[in-house]
């Protein structure tokens, strides 16, 4: 293996520019002659726009144009990329206008765009805008919303977007199992609404070139090709060859930068109209009320068991908040990314999931790190813990008892998906070891001496990653394919540029992808560079989310590299005067089998571009190959997590003492980067469990509209993690045997933390069944003193 190949903990080469201030973030870019856009946003949650008089604002210094919803009536709405079919047919899909027209539907809903020479001039003009909005009653609570009354979208006559039963044909059998079950555990819980808070707020710059009729959109996106397709085809009507989307360095996304946002369409449309570049940069305050939020489910879950803890059936009813409009992939999150994971790591034979998606006067909700899978894992692992307590069974044992056994793979779940491989006992064994569960009682005694209640939380998780098989998701309502693409461009001297459809915004692709090629060819990874984030340079790929980059785009890269190697062998065979079948590639050298005759990688690549001694009659010159890869199944990373906490009974404050994660990600390219991904994910999960929550009051005002009230996790809130990914059952259907690791930590950690807190309280003799997240000191104190 060459240095820096598969399995090496190579340090992230991209960090040099990130850490020295040389990253190329979109806000760092200023285009000559650019105008600035300020968005005027609703301050009320729901209201009728009576008047927007722009005359006075237009007369302000530097103001070039002001646009309102009326200007966008002929333009398409922001499209939704996923159609869910519910019990009563297709979901209801009200128009999501670029700028609100007629009504505003959430605090932050944009209704005017002011274009001026400077940003301050645009903001001054916003204050001169003469606007009358008659406030309407707001509908915030989902259970109120489904009763009718106040409607977010009058034209659809209901706030219920869809009512989805999964799998409807199984419902009768599930209900029957509950009727005869020896024991039923019921839990109602909230999966709290989160605000993604990427370090870099969103930015969009529209730049139209009249000489070529081409528009360039620079944007903070996780998937530039998807934005080009959605905005070009569905919103603005610009064909692909006249639209280029560039997302250079992006400072974190966590899902919130997957979606097509109004501001992207605005700057593109306005720059075409005014024939000048237009820039918009979100303030942090705007980000709180305009980036799609995450989670926000209210769920009732029931688990039927026998008295020995064997799972017999699961039944759930979930209300999923869509917010005021359907964001790009919102409908898929509570359905196909949630219902399909309700089997977890267990062989529960009967499962029925009901999801009611609801419109409310709140910011749209969409995928956020984990997207549906954290919600599934949380409810399942909480109810299992509760059942274990009710039945007096150890929480590790009840899980072991119900695991899908190793000899059952591939395992067809009762909720559509089929797990290709896994070894859940092994990850649990590893967890028991690294978390030192045997030592818990002595640690608990030590905590008790300090007056603190110590608790241990255990849980497992499984996720469906490597998103996704196109035909399967198409049948489930996706309006896009979810393959990916890579072009491997070998240069004359042997260096390689790989143009990928995936997009890196923290994942380290620029380091890990070259490691794969380095191993395949036997050259140093420094010979390989990744090009991403520019539809003008990269093949059509679907971007990065759903822990898909390596499993899907990486597989495309492998396929393209295989084509390169096949062609290079033909060239080598010609040059070495041997037959193609006798050529071996090892350590960057093509050798004739059983001889010492060889050509170096660079000799062959040079010949491809200087084809003098070359099989020109049968082999084209050049060395560049593209592959598109469509996975045949999801991948199923899985693991077991343990968290230990101390609860201060006087204040309710929870301190995380330790956190251990035993993950099975299949094969691993760069263990250090995997560690980092898991660390970050657990940190976000701890944030959800203890700190973060987007809170609206009854009028729809966002009470957590800044860091003064929205609590982000900080270094002091998280422990040093113990992570292990030595349990590896390689994915059986992609060439690298990889599963994906980006979301695992965020999916697996919230139930571990909550289980630990509930355990601590119950061990201290207080009967508390559940506390909703975030488990703030005030909530924990109230629960133990109830």
């Amino acid at each position, binding site marked *: 293996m060459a240095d820096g190949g598969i399995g090496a903990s190579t340090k992230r080469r991209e960090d040099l520019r990130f850490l020295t201030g040389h990253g190329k973030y979109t806000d760092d870019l200023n285009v000559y002659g650019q105008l600035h856009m300020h968005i005027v946003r609703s301050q009320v949650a729901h209201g009728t726009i009576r008047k927007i008089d722009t005359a006075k604002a237009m007369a302000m210094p530097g103001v070039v144009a002001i646009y309102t919803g009326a200007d966008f009536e002929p333009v398409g709405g922001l499209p939704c990329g996923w159609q869910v079919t519910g019990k009563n047919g297709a979901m209801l899909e009200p128009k999501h206008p670029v700028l609100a027209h007629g009504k505003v539907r959430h605090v932050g809903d944009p209704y005017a765009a002011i274009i001026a020479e400077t940003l301050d001039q645009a903001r001054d003009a916003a204050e001169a805008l003469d606007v009358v909005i008659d406030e309407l009653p707001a509908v915030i609570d989902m259970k109120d919303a489904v009763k009718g009354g106040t409607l977010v979208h009058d034209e659809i006559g209901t706030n219920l977007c869809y009512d989805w039963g999964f799998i409807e044909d199984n419902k009768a059998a599930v209900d029957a199992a509950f009727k005869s079950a020896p024991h039923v555990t019921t839990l109602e819980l909230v999966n709290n609404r989160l605000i993604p808070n990427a370090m870099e707020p969103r930015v969009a710059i529209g730049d139209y070139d009249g000489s070529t009729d081409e528009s360039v959109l620079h944007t903070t996106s996780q998937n530039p090709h998807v934005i080009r397709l959605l905005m070009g085809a569905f919103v603005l009507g610009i064909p692909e060859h006249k639209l280029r989307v560039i997302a250079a360095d992006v400072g974190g996304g966590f899902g919130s930068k997957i979606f097509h946002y109004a501001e992207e369409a605005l700057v593109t449309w306005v720059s075409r109209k005014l024939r000048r570049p237009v820039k918009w940069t979100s303030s942090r305050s705007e980000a709180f009320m305009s980036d799609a939020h995450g989670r926000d489910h209210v769920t009732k879950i029931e688990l039927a068991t026998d008295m020995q803890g064997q799972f017999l059936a699961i039944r759930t009813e979930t209300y999923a908040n869509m917010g005021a409009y359907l964001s790009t992939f919102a409908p898929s999150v509570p359905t196909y990314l949630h219902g399909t994971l309700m089997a977890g790591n267990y062989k529960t034979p009967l499962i029925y999931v009901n999801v009611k998606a609801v419109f409310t006067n709140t910011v749209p909700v969409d995928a956020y790190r984990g997207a549906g899978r954290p919600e599934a894992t949380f409810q399942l692992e909480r109810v299992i813990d509760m059942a274990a307590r009710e039945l007096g069974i150890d929480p590790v044992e009840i899980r072991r008892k119900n695991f899908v056994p190793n000899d059952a793979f591939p395992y067809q779940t009762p909720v559509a998906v089929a797990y290709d491989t896994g070894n859940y006992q092994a990850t649990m064994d590893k967890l028991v070891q690294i978390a030192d569960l045997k030592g818990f009682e002595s640690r608990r005694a030590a905590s008790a001496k300090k007056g603190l209640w110590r608790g241990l939380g255990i849980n497992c998780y499984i996720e469906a990653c490597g998103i996704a098989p196109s035909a399967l998701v198409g049948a489930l309502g996706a309006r896009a394919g979810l393959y990916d693409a890579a072009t491997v461009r070998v240069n004359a001297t042997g260096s390689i540029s790989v143009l990928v459809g995936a997009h890196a915004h923290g994942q380290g692709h620029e380091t890990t992808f070259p490691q794969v090629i380095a191993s395949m060819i036997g050259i140093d990874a420094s010979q390989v560079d990744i090009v991403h984030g520019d539809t003008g340079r990269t093949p059509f790929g679907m971007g990065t989310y759903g822990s898909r980059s390596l499993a899907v785009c990486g597989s495309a890269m492998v396929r393209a590299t295989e084509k390169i190697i096949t062609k290079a062998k033909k060239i080598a065979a010609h040059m070495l005067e041997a037959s193609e079948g006798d050529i071996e590639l090892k350590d960057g050298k093509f050798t004739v089998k059983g001889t010492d005759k060889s050509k170096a990688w660079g000799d062959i690549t040079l010949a491809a571009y200087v084809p003098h001694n070359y099989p020109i009659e049968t082999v084209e010159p050049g060395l560049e190959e593209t592959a598109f890869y469509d996975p045949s199944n999801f991948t199923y990373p899985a693991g077991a997590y343990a968290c230990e906490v101390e609860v201060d009974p006087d204040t309710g404050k929870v301190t995380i003492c330790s956190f251990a994660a035993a993950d099975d990600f299949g094969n691993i390219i760069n263990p250090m980067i995997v560690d980092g991904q898991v660390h970050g994910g657990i940190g976000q999960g701890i944030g959800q469990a*203890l700190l973060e*929550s987007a809170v609206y009051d009854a009028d729809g005002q966002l009470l957590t509209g800044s*860091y*003064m*009230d929205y609590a982000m996790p900080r270094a002091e809130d998280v422990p040093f993690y113990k992570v292990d990914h030595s349990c590896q059952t390689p994915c059986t259907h992609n060439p690298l045997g990889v599963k994906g690791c980006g979301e695992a930590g965020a999916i697996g950690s919230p139930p571990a933390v909550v289980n630990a807190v509930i355990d601590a309280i119950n061990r201290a003799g207080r009967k508390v069944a559940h506390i909703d997240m975030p488990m703030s*000191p005030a909530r924990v*104190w109230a629960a133990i003193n109830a």
Partner: protein
Amino acid sequence: MYDFNIVRPKTVADAVKALAEDGAMALGGGHTLIPTLKQRLAQPSVLVALSGIADMKGVSAAGGVLSVKGGTPHGTVAKEAAKTYPALAHLASMIGDPAVRNRGTIGGSLANNDPAACYPAAALASGATIVTNTRQIKADDYFQGMFTTALEPGEIITEVRFPVPEKAKYQKFEQPASRFALVGVFVAKYADGVRVAVTGASEQGVFRWIEAEKALSANFSKAALANLTASADGLIGDIHGTAEYRAHLVKVLTGRAVEAA
């Protein structure tokens, strides 16, 4: 932010003169004012930066009194008060983060009188004297409710004088998001009695818990608080905690401050 002028006087007298202008505002460390300006929630015509006035910086001790000049940053107090008044130094060392502590000033904090700020608790519990360019104000007269003080327009805090107690401690329970005090309690024991000041908890800003002061003056131990209950009347209730929770914390933190003093 809107356009404004800024002046940087070198003396208190020049600062006072500059503040007499219509629409002038004093700028200390700026940790409240600058975010307010960025949100366009204030439109001063001129900012009078106090940071260039050498005479408004420094910590000194004499005759059982610690003097902190009004423009002294928290970080300086954390270092230079550590020997004379460790509880005050500890409080200063826990405000915000290093950047905040290097810019934010004691005068700015006391003039703003944020109901969750730390310094008001120290000043009130210490029975400090707030010295301005025109007069001396007793802490008991100075704090007049949330964001309200005895300061007249244009008046500048030039110095704060803390009588050094025999024993003292500040206990802060952080609001999870802002890390301001959800409740903060400063307990200071003097020869003539104990003073207990509470920040973060009340709709009226910092206040003294008189019942606890009486009990602790008689017996400076946590046990002395056993039969007391802090009243939830008039306390803040919000998404981070109910009034009852804050009242409970007042008692817990007072006990911890006494134990740690």
